[in-house]
């Protein structure tokens, strides 16, 4: 049955070509249209659709603050006594200076009025938060591994404003994890924070480090 159909269609193909309408070119044109359209969808439209853009509740100037504190990043992003990492500062820390409005900035006024006075924590959007299925310890990397913040977080401390946070509509996680290049290309160590990026460094440091993570490759070493 199928053999017969096949033969049949090939017969009709030959007929069309013979009719001399140059349809080979048309067919190729359609191929190119399809190709181009889907390349545009895949490379341009899709990333736009995949991520929603969110603005931080309050803008923040790292440079300005960095000048005023004595211990660099750790002044605000510090390790707690039990070794856990504090991450984004809580209101309690900000209040130490910002009980009242200090300067001229509109953003600071908003911060003091909307959050400090009302005692509401600022719902900061965390660019670098890993999915919940990942264990990550800052202490192991910063204290034991002596890594600096920039290796993973880039030049965050040199920003004068907080960039737009892009949230993945499927997973809900930040775009920073996959990286800004939709194809996953990266130039700097901090451009992407996927498992391969962890592995890359852990492979390189294999000799140097004696931690469990660098020696074993079981899933549950890093995943829960």
């Amino acid at each position, binding site marked *: 049955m199928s053999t017969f159909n096949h033969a049949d269609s090939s017969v009709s193909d030959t007929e069309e070509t013979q009719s001399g309408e140059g*349809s080979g070119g048309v*067919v*190729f044109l359609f*191929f190119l249209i*399809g190709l181009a*359209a889907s*390349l545009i969808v895949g490379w341009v439209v899709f990333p736009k659709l*995949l991520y929603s853009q969110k603005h931080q509740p309050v803008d923040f100037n790292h440079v300005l603050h960095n000048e005023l504190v004595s211990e660099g990043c750790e002044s605000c992003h510090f390790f707690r006594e039990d070794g856990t990492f504090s*991450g984004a500062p809580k209101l309690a820390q900000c209040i130490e200076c910002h009980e009242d409005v200090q300067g001229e900035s509109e953003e600071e006024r908003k911060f003091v009025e909307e959050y400090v006075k009302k005692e509401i924590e600022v719902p900061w959007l965390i660019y670098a938060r890993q999915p919940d299925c990942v264990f990550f310890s800052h202490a192991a990397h910063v204290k034991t591994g002596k890594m600096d913040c920039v290796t993973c977080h880039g030049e965050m401390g040199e920003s004068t404003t907080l960039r737009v946070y892009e949230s993945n509509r499927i*997973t809900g996680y930040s775009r920073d994890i996959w990286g800004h290049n939709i194809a996953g290309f990266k130039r700097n160590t901090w451009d992407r924070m996927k498992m391969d990026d962890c592995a890359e460094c852990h492979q390189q440091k294999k000799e140097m480090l004696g931690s469990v993570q660098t020696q074993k490759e079981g899933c549950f070493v890093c995943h829960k």
Partner: protein
Amino acid sequence: MKIDRRCFLSLGVGAGAGIALSPLPWKITDDLSIWTQNWSWTPVPATGEFTTVNTICTLCPGGCGISVKKVDNRAIKIEGMTDHPVNGGGICSLGLSGLQLLYGPTRIKTPLKRTGERGSGQWTALSWDQAIAEVAEKLNAIRTSGSPQSVACISGATSPTVSRLIDRFMAAYGSPNSLSVPTFIDSYRAALQLMHGVAANPGFDLEHAGYILSFGSGLLDGWGSPVRTFKANSGWKKSKVKLVQIEPRLSRTAAKADVWITINPGTESDLAMGIAHVIIKESLFKADFVQNYASNFNEQFRKLILDNFSPETVSKTTGVDSASIIMIAREFAKAKNPLAVCGRGQGNIPGGMNEFLAVHALNALVGAINREGGIWAVADMPVSDWPAVQQDSTATTGSRRPRLDNAGTQAFPVAMSLLNQFSSALISGKPYPVQALLMVESNPVFTLADSESTRNALNKIPFIVSFSSFMDDSAALSDLILPNHVYLERMEDVASAAGFNRPLIGLCQPVVTPGLDTRHVGDAVILLAQALGGAIADAFPWDSFENCLEETLGDQLETLKEKSFVVDEGFQPDSWATAFHTPSQKFEFIPTALASKKPFAPINPEGDASAFPVILLPYDTMRISSGFIGNPPFLTKTIEDTVLKGTHSLIEINPKTAQTFGLKEGNMAMLQTPKGQAPVQVHIDDGIMPGVIALPRGLGHVAYDSYLAGKGVNINRLIGSVPDPVSGLDAAWGIRAKLSKA
């Protein structure tokens, strides 16, 4: 130019190629895999700074100290408190799952009033003011009609101050019917009362015992303070302390014991007497104790034992061969720091006094009383004074009426409360019917023997108020629910851990601020008293429970808030010379009060042997919580499928017994007892004696949530209560039964 089918196909191919050359498929695959590994609806502990709150777990009488980790106001993990004297950092699986009780769906969120038929699950929410007003109105009407005695309260409260507050409420209101939920500790207390003449709790110096003779106690199945006992067992294993388990079935304790002795169920006191016989006959007893600190040993006890309990005689009733009896007796008497314990399984049923008196007599024979490694009488701690209740005339008349449970009567002078007999009075309606019932931290419909009759009797009570935090089987039958905070939200004192051998009090502290519209039952009682007014309100000079607690605990409260427990580390029990306050001022092997009774006579199971050829035993396991607290889902997950399969309870049965009933593994069978019947699935197991079958306690809830309701059989439906002739407490250790193929 002709556009035909091939053009579209080509377009499709081009699109496909383009998509393949773009990151889209790989990115979507990656995102989907991340999404499926991190379902947004799966609860994830909050991130942020941990704080730790130390408090006491009150999910069982174990009294473990716990450290609860939290982030902001969200509790995220419960761990054992490392420096707590009872559990030293350990925790059991129930304690570990406690957060599911705090955050689970079965919590009652606000005061509720029944709107449909009883038990139909139709409720409407009330405000606390409305709820208190409704209860006060009903209670007022009953009082005005002149029968305050017809209001009863069943309380399993873990806080001594809450218990006192409830007793005080009942006294001021005018009812003698304030009942508590008893355990094996109550039987031990009765034994200490009768043999030592003291009001004291039993304390077991497990950590220093040198030989353990356990008469069916589930030392590794949740007896006493479970985590402490587990730890003690590890110590025994290390220092090669022998554990002898006497039990008709291979419980976890029996499996881990050095020696497991199977015994005809219910004959444990006979075996203890048989062991005593060998010890006396071979003069292996502690002569100093027996001669100087015990009364009437030679004339009474020695004679009783030598005349009636030779190993040969005892071996006939118990099924334990006389050589084993002799061997154990010698080992026990010669060991350094021997200790005999009883209280079956977890000790949830108080048990027969014959066993407690016989086993305690064994300890006395070898001098294991108030000595290192033995059993200690830990006297009750003095409580701070509260002003006396000034009863009005209605209250005076009401509280003089007889208690419905016969506690403290001539028949049962040692008992303070006899919940098992209360349920018989409920069923019979005599000497007077109950018009209103208050239930605090108790689930009588589920936990009392003969639970179907209890349910019917409860259904006859016109007004039932539950203070439960959960929609448990009894709360589901009530008319009004005034939900209590759960333990992790409460501030209250906690009595010592069951069987702990030093004076200890704990403080349950709020780990999180209550998230639902619940109130501490102590506050609810105070509000109720105030709403009732008059002399009742006057009896409660506190404006809140916390205020009452502050006054009651005084300076101790501050220390308690810091560490959450206060223990008398250097406590030493009274020496033999000063320990006994019986009529003879000595230890009484046969208590004076029982001279005319037969204190060591075995308790027979209910039922006729010809109609019901086998004996059904309930058993306890660490994986099922069988009291007021129902299993949290995590714990239910751990139940083996030889215990619960789907919704079927499995009955443990010896291959020989199964053969006589024509049953095979996995068959469905109908289990019948004089109290009722239930379908069960057969599980054949060599670990149980022929002629005995067993079901776990704690399954077969009809309420709670879908994680618990409808799973298995509630064994209490199949067992009646047998009042102990001495204590009056429930002594039923099993019941006669039969199986037929279903």
